[in-house]
C-alpha cells in the first residue's frame, strides 16, 4: 500500500525523468568534494529508496524536502540526496555520506537508512 506522501516522491521522480532537476551550488560543491557523480545522484532520485520527507516550514526554507538514499543492490547505500520542490523544478539541496551525519541508522532488514 502506498503512503499518503508517495505522490511527492513520484512527483520528484517525474521531474527528474523530464530533466527538471537543478543542482544548487552547495550540492555540486559537496558532490565534487566527495567525488559523487551527477549520474549516481540522478539514479538515487529515480531508483533509490525514499527514506524521509521533511514538510515545511523547515529551518532553512518553505519547500517540501524529499530524501533519497543511493540506489545500489550490492552495498549498503552510502550517500543521501536531499531534493526540494520549487515548481516547475526540483532543486538538489545537498548530497552527503550517511557516515558523516548524525541522526541516521541503517535497517539491515529493510535495507534502508532511518532518520531518528
Amino acid at each position: 500500500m502506498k503512503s499518503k506522501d508517495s505522490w511527492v516522491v513520484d512527483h520528484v521522480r517525474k521531474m527528474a525523468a523530464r530533466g527538471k532537476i537543478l543542482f544548487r551550488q552547495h550540492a555540486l560543491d559537496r558532490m565534487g568534494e566527495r567525488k559523487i557523480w551527477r549520474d549516481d545522484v540522478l539514479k538515487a532520485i529515480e531508483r533509490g529508496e525514499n527514506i524521509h520527507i521533511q514538510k515545511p516550514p523547515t529551518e532553512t526554507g518553505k519547500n517540501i524536502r524529499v530524501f533519497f538514499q543511493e540506489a545500489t543492490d550490492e552495498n549498503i547505500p552510502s550517500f543521501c540526496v536531499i531534493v526540494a520542490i520549487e515548481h516547475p523544478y526540483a532543486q538538489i539541496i545537498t548530497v552527503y555520506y550517511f557516515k558523516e551525519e548524525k541522526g541516521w541508522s541503517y535497517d539491515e532488514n529493510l535495507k534502508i537508512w532511518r532518520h531518528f
Partner: protein
Amino acid sequence: MKCVICSNRMQEINTSYNSRWGDYTLTIQGIKAYKCDECDELVFNSEVAKMIQSITAGFSEKEGDKPDFLNVEETAELLRVSNQTIYNMIKDGRLVATKVGREWRFSKEKVISLIDNGNEEISLAAQKGTQLTQNESELIQKHVNRLKNKSEEKRK
C-alpha cells in the same frame, strides 16, 4: 524561479564557478546558472552540472599524470636549484637527460631517485660547489616526499 532557501527570485546569468573534484580545484568561466538575488547561491541545470564534473574530474586526472618527463625549468624547480645548476649537472654526468630536438628532458622518476638514494648525490652536488646547502637538501627532500605521498595516494 525562486530560491528554495530564501524564497527570493533567481535570474539566469553567465558566471565563473570554482569547481572541485576531491582536493583538486578548477575555476571554470562562462557557466550558465541561476543566481539568487538575495543569498547569491548559484543553481545549475543537470547538463551544466555534468559538464562541470566531467571537466574538473578530467583535469584532476591529467594533473596527477602529467609530469612523467620534466624540462629544465621543471627539474630546477623540483630540485630547488637554478637552471644553470641543472646544465652543470648534465655536463658532469650527475643528472641523466635526453635531448629531444633542442630541449633537454628528464625522467621525473630518475630525478626523484637521485635524491632518494640516501642523499649521496645531493651531498656530492654540494661538495662539487653546486650551492646546495643543508637547508636546500632538506627542502628538496621535503618536496620529493610530498610528491611521493601524492603519487602513492593516487595509486591507492
